[in-house]
């Protein structure tokens, strides 16, 4: 990603914009909206991984966003658009709980702290019945219209989701290429060295946390309006909104721009397809396959799909010359693995 090549931006964007014209089936549009939501959350998650940080706490930000918009709308009559704005702010503020662990901990310890945070919020959402309506959840009113982000057709949802996702991607590209992104990537390589150069690494990491959380909150809020019903076990589900985005990112290629997008586009329909195909046949088979596929992909393409395809492309282009490069890449990863 040295230079943004224009065709790579224009072509997919155009395709995405025109898609509803060709794809009138509401169910496929629905899947497309799901893909967009997941792409957005994954792209948001990925901003933290620019800095080499693995967060499994994004379900927390997603859930905060969902609950913020729903509670404001249902209990206080706040317009959902304003609610989404509030969701961004609340999710960012909510992420501050993780700020201290983020700055003090490295590697798996931070990851575990983020998982614990999701769990705490889930349990609190179940417990605080007067605010959250507990496990029964909150249902947003059926009033339709652009002002309420509620429509009969999937098309407007699709375009709103697309706008959100494109904005998220734009922000992510902008960050990647900004000084913040440069510092983040440097932190990912060697935090101590970067700090020694006088970069305020704490500020950099905190910035990525806040931006990432705020973006995730926006998608959580949109998803709440899109699904109508929110409930703690789903909205604060580590599996759905922490692990799945991380998985998309990793399968596509963590810390790259295109990786998360590719990952979400592939993994979301895969999950849907497995469920649709195997559910009802025998309990659990679809998730068994999902787990197995996950193991296989991670085992065979540890650099992610984007990297994997690139390697294949390089290999075919260069014929057998890959050997030296391959070997050195191994040496490098060995070192990182320590």
């Amino acid at each position, binding site marked *: 990603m040295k230079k943004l090549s224009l065709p790579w931006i224009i072509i997919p964007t155009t395709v995405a914009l025109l898609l509803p014209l060709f794809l009138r089936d509401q169910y496929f549009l629905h899947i497309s909206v799901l893909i967009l939501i997941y792409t957005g959350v994954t792209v948001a998650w990925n901003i933290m991984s620019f800095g080499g940080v693995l967060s499994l706490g994004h379900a927390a930000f997603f859930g905060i966003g969902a609950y913020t918009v729903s509670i404001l709308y249902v209990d206080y009559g706040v317009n959902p658009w304003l609610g989404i704005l509030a969701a961004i702010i609340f999710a960012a503020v909510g992420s501050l709980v993780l700020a201290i662990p983020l700055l003090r901990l490295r590697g798996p310890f931070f990851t575990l702290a983020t998982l614990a945070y999701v769990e705490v919020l889930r349990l609190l959402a179940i417990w605080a019945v007067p605010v959250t309506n507990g496990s029964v959840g909150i249902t947003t009113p059926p009033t339709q219209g652009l002002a309420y982000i509620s429509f009969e057709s999937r098309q407007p949802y699709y375009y709103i989701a697309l706008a959100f996702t494109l904005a998220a991607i734009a922000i992510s590209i902008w960050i990647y290429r900004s000084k913040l992104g440069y510092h983040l990537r440097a932190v990912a390589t060697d935090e101590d060295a970067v700090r020694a150069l006088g970069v305020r690494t704490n500020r950099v990491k905190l910035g990525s946390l806040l931006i990432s959380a705020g973006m995730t909150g926006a998608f959580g809020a949109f998803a709440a309006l899109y699904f109508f019903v929110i409930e703690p076990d789903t909205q604060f589900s580590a599996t759905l909104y922490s692990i799945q985005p991380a998985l998309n990112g990793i399968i596509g290629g963590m810390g790259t721009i295109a990786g998360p997008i590719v990952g979400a586009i592939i993994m979301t329909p895969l999950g849907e397809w497995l469920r649709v195909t195997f559910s009802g046949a025998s309990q659990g088979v679809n998730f068994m396959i999902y787990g197995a596929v996950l193991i296989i992909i991670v085992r065979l393409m540890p650099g992610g799909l984007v990297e994997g395809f690139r390697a294949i492309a390089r290999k075919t282009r260069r014929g057998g010359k890959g050997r*030296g490069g391959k*070997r*050195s890449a*191994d*040496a490098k990863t060995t070192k990182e693995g320590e």
Partner: protein
Amino acid sequence: MLEVMNISAYYGDAQALEDVTLSLPAHGVTAFLGPNAAGKSTTLRVVSGLIPAATGTIEFEGRDITGTSPQERVAMGIVHVPEGRRLFNTMTVEDNLILGGYTKRKDRKTAARLDEIYDHFPKLAERRKQEAGLMSGGEQQMCAVGRGMMAGPKVLMIDEMSLGLAPVIVKQMFAIVKGIAATGMSVLLVEQHVKNALEVADFGTIIDGGITRATGTAAELRESDVVRESYLGH
């Protein structure tokens, strides 16, 4: 006894070694010299098997060992004392030493070897039960060398032994190393201070920029004009 022939190696995409050739006799001290980032430590890592050689071969006692694992090489008698000592800090000195003798654990002579180490380094005997991380730099270096010797090496490669040690301790250490070499093993000393090293060493090899520049007896190198100009700073 150990012949390193024309090896190259990479860190990531960066080439760290281009063409290094190194030969060790069956005993005596060989100094392996060169400026910072010349590729000395990398060479050692290739010899001990931590990094694969991209090209070139390594022979030990007439056998090609280029493809063997670090463990096999230790078992054969090629032992690497890494830069920065890398002791197991939370474990006792004695446990560190015992682990050093891991490859020889089955010959039931661990106690005898321990005694031998304690003879060489009486300080370590005093500190046997102390956590290794809590000792002074010099003591830690002794422990690291002792740990290497526990494997019963034929070739002992010590990386940057004098780094961060007081000059008095450095002198002591050099003397001890010379003593060890006299018991019939080959010691490879990696040093930045060319002059100090050439004073204790019997032989020397100088590398720079990942390429072997000069090889000879210590005396030859001390007298060589090139070496004097480029590395001894006269």
